[in-house]
Every structure is written in C-alpha cells, then in structure tokens.
C-alpha cells in the first residue's frame, strides 16, 4: 500500500520545515552583512546538508541552470561597468579595473548567497510539510491553501499554455517563427489562457467547497510534523546568533 506520510529518514529529512526555513533565513541574512568570505562557509555547508537530504543532484542542476550563468553575467557586467583604481586588463574600449573587480565580488557574492539560500530551501523543504507545519502553528488553512496553490499553479499553467498553443496552431496560427510572428500569436494564446484561468478559478472554488474547505470545525491530516521544544530552542538560538552577527559587523566589533 502506498505510504502517504514522508517516511522516516535522517535528521535533515525529518527536520521541522519551519526550523529549516528559520536556519536558512538566518544564514542568508548573515551572509548579506558579512560579504564574500561568508560563501566559503555557507556554500559548502549547504551542499553537504542538501546531499544528506538526498537532493544533491537537483541542487546542482539548479545551480548549473540558473545561478552559474546569472552570477557569471553579473560578475562580468559589474567588472566592466565600473572603472577606478588599478587597471588589471584592457582591450580596445573594455577595461577591468580594481573598482570593477571589487564591485563584481561584492554584488555577485551577495547574489550567490541569496541563490544558495533559495535553492537550499527548494531542495530541503517539502511544500506540503511546510504548509502543514504552518497549520499546526495556527495559520488559517485558507492561507496555506493559497500558498500551496500559488506554487503548484506554475506547472499546471505550463501544461495549459501547451494545450492552447496546440489549439491555435491547429487553426493555422504560427507561434514558433520570428519575434513578430510570436508577438502576433500573443493574443490568441494569452486570451484563452486568462479566460480559462478565470473560469477555472470559479470551478476550483466550487470544488474546494465540495471538499469542505470552508467546513467549520477542527481539521485533521495524515501528515503530522513534529514540533518539539528542541526545534523552538534551535530557532531562538539561530535568531540570537544572527542578530549578534549583525550587531558585531555593524558596530565594527568583528570585521570578517
């Protein structure tokens, strides 16, 4: 029989998703204040944690597909757009200077910290467990529904767009040629997408009513997320450390 509850795994897999979110956010905030050297700690740590959770392949794929090209582009643009100080290299009108290099490191490092945090969350936190943990903390199920539906609507919309594209091609509307042709195809694709989205919102609301979403009274779930005192302690300690780091950096007590 299919087992609906996330099977017991290692500590990372079992961890309360709210604790994971709290820890990663604290790491992210610290990273934004500390700067480029922080990456030497944060990035390898995230790789190890994601690997323990068994999601390293997906994590590396996300880094390769999104972060690497974006960070590279950002680094190059910052390097070449700012001029000042020692010139390290130049060719024709292109010049890489000390100021450009410093700016490139500064901004790219922060971007990578944000990206690392986001991808770590994507790979560590299961949406259903996260929203269930929120509900267990007293968040209104309607709010968690909206959160889940918003995230999950993206693949559904992609599927819908593919169907509408097919339907429009079938009536002779080119959708795959040059930019002008694609622009002309925008209305025939966007209009049914928006109209059907509006219709389906109403029907989806009816479906949810049929499933008792607005039924008054206590709710239950097969999914239970452990929420121990230890979890709360970890979160409090993480927030305290995060705050301490910010104060130390801002007051110049610690200059990493």
């Amino acid at each position, binding site marked *: 029989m299919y087992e609906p509850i996330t099977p017991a795994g290692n500590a990372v897999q079992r961890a309360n998703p709210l604790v994971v979110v709290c820890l990663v956010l604290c790491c992210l905030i610290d990273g934004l204040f500390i700067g480029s050297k922080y990456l030497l700690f944060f990035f390898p740590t995230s790789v190890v944690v994601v690997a323990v959770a068994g999601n390293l392949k997906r994590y590396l794929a996300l880094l390769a597909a999104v972060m690497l090209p974006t960070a590279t582009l950002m680094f190059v643009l910052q390097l070449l757009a700012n001029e000042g100080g020692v010139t390290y290299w130049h060719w024709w009108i292109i010049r890489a200077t000390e100021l450009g290099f410093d700016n490139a490191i500064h901004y790219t490092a922060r971007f990578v910290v944000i990206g690392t945090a986001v991808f770590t969350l994507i790979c560590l936190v299961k949406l259903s467990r996260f929203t269930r943990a929120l509900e267990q903390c007293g968040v209104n199920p309607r709010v968690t529904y909206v959160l889940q539906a918003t995230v999950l609507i993206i693949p559904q919309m992609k599927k819908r767009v593919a169907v509408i594209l097919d339907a429009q091609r*079938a009536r002779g509307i080119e959708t795959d040629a040059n930019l002008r042709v694609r622009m002309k195809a925008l209305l025939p694709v966007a209009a049914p997408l928006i109209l059907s989205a509006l219709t389906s919102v109403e029907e989806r609301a009816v479906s949810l009513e049929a*499933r*008792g979403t607005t039924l008054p009274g206590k709710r239950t779930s097969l999914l239970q997320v452990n929420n121990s005192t230890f979890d709360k302690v970890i979160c409090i300690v993480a927030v305290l450390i995060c705050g301490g780091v910010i104060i130390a950096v801002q007051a110049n007590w610690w200059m990493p």
Partner: protein
Amino acid sequence: MNAIEITGLSFSYPLANRPALQEINLSVKPGEWVSVVGANGAGKSTLAQVIRGLVPHFSKGDLSGRVLVNGRDLATLSVGEITADVGYVFQNPFTQLTGVATTVYAELSYGLGNMGVPPVEIRRRVDAMLESTKLTKLAARNPFELSGGQQQRVALAAILVMEQPILVIDEPTSQLDPETTNAMFELLAAAHSAGRTVVLIEHKMEQVAQFSERVIMLHDGRLVLEGTPEQVFTDPQCESYGVRLPESLYLQRALEQRGVLLPDKALSVNNLVMQLVKLGMHPRTAKSEPAQDDVPVIHPERFSTTQPVTPALLEIDRVTFSYPNGVEAIHEVSLNLRAGESVAIIGQNGAGKTTLAKLVNALLRPSSGEVRINGQSTAKWTAAETARRVGYVFQNPDDQIFNKSVYAEVEYAPKRWGLSEAEVRRRVVDALHLTGLTGSQNLNPYDLPLSVRKFVTIASTIALDTDMVIFDEPTAGQDLRGLNRLITILRELAARGKTVITITHDMEFVSQNFSRTVVMTDRQIIADTPTEETFYLNEVLAKAMLDQPAFPELTRNFFSNDIGLSMNALASAVVEQLGR
C-alpha cells in the same frame, strides 16, 4: 423526512433574459435515485447547484422558494455546512482537483481532513476507496499527470470517500469511454445500494433508464415531466423537449413501423430481446458464440478489410510516437484515408486516438514512420502550415476561442491567411449557416453555453475550408438538438468531398453516422473495417473495452452478423422468423 424537499423554487441569474428555474417542486426520499434530464440550458446544473447550496451562496442571483436538505433549510446554512450532507461532482475533471495535493492519495484524503476525520479513519476509508475504484496503482501519482478519465474517477472517488448521505452528480461521464463510464455507474450504484441518495444529471439515457428510480425532465427552467423512467421516456412529449431516448426505444419504434409490434415499451435492449422471444423469436444458442478461450490474438492487419481504391489523401505509414519522457503513445500505426471518406476512431481513454490525430495535424512529430497528405510528407511542415490542409476541432472549445464576437472568431484565421475580404466573408457566412450560429454572430462567444461554443470552434474550422477535418469528441455534452446539428454538419462536409475523422466515445453516434470505423487500443489500431462489421467483432470490442451499440446488441441475440446495421434487414428477418 425527505432527503431533499424543494418548494416553489425559482432562480434568475443577474442580467439573464429569463429565469434559470421556475416554480420547481420536488421531493426526493432518502436512498432514492433521481435523474434530472433535459436539453442544454434547461436548468439542470442550476438545480444541482441549488441542492448543493452553491446557488445562491456562491453564484449570486434572485432565488425564491424553499430548499430543505435533510430537513435543514439551505437559506440558514453556509456553503461549508452543507458539505456535511451533500457531495457534489461535476463535469470538468481538471478543475475538480484541489490543486494542492501532489498524490492521488492526498487528493482523496483532503476532504476527510477538512471534515476532521481522525487520521486512522482517513487511512481506512482512502485505502478502501482506492481499492473499490481501482485507483490503488495510481495512489502515488500526481493527479494532474493523469488522463481526463482517470482524473474524473479520482474526482468521484474523492467525493464518495467523504460518505455524505446525498450525492449530486452533474454529467460525470461526458468525457469518459464506455468502459470507464460503466465503472463510474457501478460506483454510483454501490453508493446507492449503501443507502445514499443520488441526484444525477446525465445525457446518457441508457444509464438513466437502467439506474434511476425516478426521472424528472426540465425544460426552460420548468419541471415538465416526472415519473419512472418508463413513464418519462414513453411520454409523447419527451423528445420534443430535446432529449434523446434510450436507443432500445428507437429500435422498438423502427420495428413497429415495419410491422413488428411489441406488447410493452422496452427501456433496454435486454427487455427488447425478452419481448421478441415472447413473440416467438428464437435466441441464438450459446454454441454459436465463440468460446472465450478461442478468442484469437488480434493483429492490426487482420481486420484491415477496407482497402482504398482511389489515391489516398492521408497516409499514415508505420508511425510510432514516444513522448519526451519515453512513454510510447503510438506504435507502428498505418492508416490510409481517401478524399471524401468519413471515418470514426474509437477506443478507450489513453488508447492513442488523440495522439494519432495530433500526428496527422503535425502538432506532434512521429518518432519513426511518416505521415503524408496528398502524397507529400508533413515532416517539414509546421502545424500552422498543416492546418491549411487539415482542420482540427479541439475537445475543449475554450482552448481556441479568444475574439469578442462569434463572427470575429470564425473569420480570424482566414483573415490572417490573407484571403480576400469577399472570400473571408463567403466562408464565414457559410460556416455560421452550417453550424446554426447565424443568429448569434454578434454575440460574445463566452455568453454562449459550452455546448454552443463547441459549434463556434467547429465553424472556425469549417471556415478554413481544408480537405480534411478532425473532430475530437464532438458529441460530449450535446443534447438531441446539438447531435442533430452535428450530424447535419458531418453529412454536408462529406457531400463537399471533405475527409472527416471523428474521435468519439459515442458508439451509437458512430454506428449511425460513419461508413468506416477504426478501433484503437494500447497504442495500436486493432481493427479498421466498415462500421456495419465493426460492432460485430466481439473480440475486438472486448479487447478495446468498448460497448456494443443497441442495434448490433439486439441482432446478435437472434441473427448472425450479415444483418449489418440495416433496420430494414432486421425487421425483414424478424418478420420472416416470426412467420408473418
């Protein structure tokens, strides 16, 4: 106390020309199965939504009268509170999914969680429901990755598992193949046997006649007929309200017109057979049926009796197609069609019918093999280029419609193709006339009911004036009037020499309107024969899990297959055997 008690109910939607429901009085006893029938726009779905409390709580409008469910006045209850008493399933499987469950198991447990059912009980009920709905193998699958038929089963299971005492079911099988339709009705019958009240809205009158204890007919928002299935379907007024009768009644009528008079009205083919036996007909013995053990393995070429004699307009040559995820949807399919041929493609959900149609239209590219139109390979044509030769009417009209008026919608593609203004106008006027939309040409398509919007997309395709037209499930959700309109269109296209391919689950429609039928199952064509032979190929029908239409179902009880689909031949044979 009645399960449902409706007194003097009238309801009007805002800005509507006429009330959707007028002076409805209806009582439904606990455990009763009541079916609501009527033409499109008669008010059936509105009535269902009133019983479910969605009207007027959710869809606003002017409501008068009183609706009690299990003795509680709906006016005093919130929509959420009504959930405890009434389960509701409607037509579109896609929007019936919660959108937040990532597995079928979670989808089924969602409603129970909202009802506060303890987890141990949720698990017990969901396991049992998966078992009885044969969804256990799909439990871990994402509901959005299932076929439409599977999604509809999940949607019904997700409501049945909530075990509300009253079920309101609005056209649950309109997109399902015969096998899955039968499975859905078995589920509803089991729920009914367990004492649950069923209010069913359905266009499939055979099932309505078979399962209902009472039938009510709505027409223009009024309750115009009420009684047992026999009383309603034999009422002389019944057809005038735009409702199809069970096929057995049409057969009975045709036999009577040819001098074979039966003592009672037959609501099923079985009943018709029994009455003919009483008159003196001799049913065929079991010996004459092939033994199940002897059913031969079916090879695609075995039933390929239809060999085109004129050059083929469409040639599908050993085509195989696999999706990027590696799932093979079509395997080594070959098919030739001549100009002017009208062919039906039938088979269960997931057999590969729509995939094959998309390969013809170049919306998909064969993994191997070739599609040729007029002898030219479509390999290098875009779908839009292919659309100049092959028109394709999608199953869901809302995938195509985007213009402000019906006229603008129909003229859009011909205009973009750069045709002259006069030619565009000629084509649009013709297409609107053929589809019966001339009077609606200035209306916004979204102001028309879904069944009529389907004709807007048909008109858009006719206006392309292609050599070939593909219809995907054109009969879904159509009433008698829509079906007759559709038949007129198919005949006119055939008369104009167009090649027509129709994908459908409606076996009666196929048996009466197509000369050639292609049967698909499990990615392959297993039969390609004249339609009058197709429905006598018992092993093919069994393998494709298809129902026999009423006519061949009747004749195979008495005669061999040389009766074909000719009513005259059947009547003559009956008269001859009765010695009259």
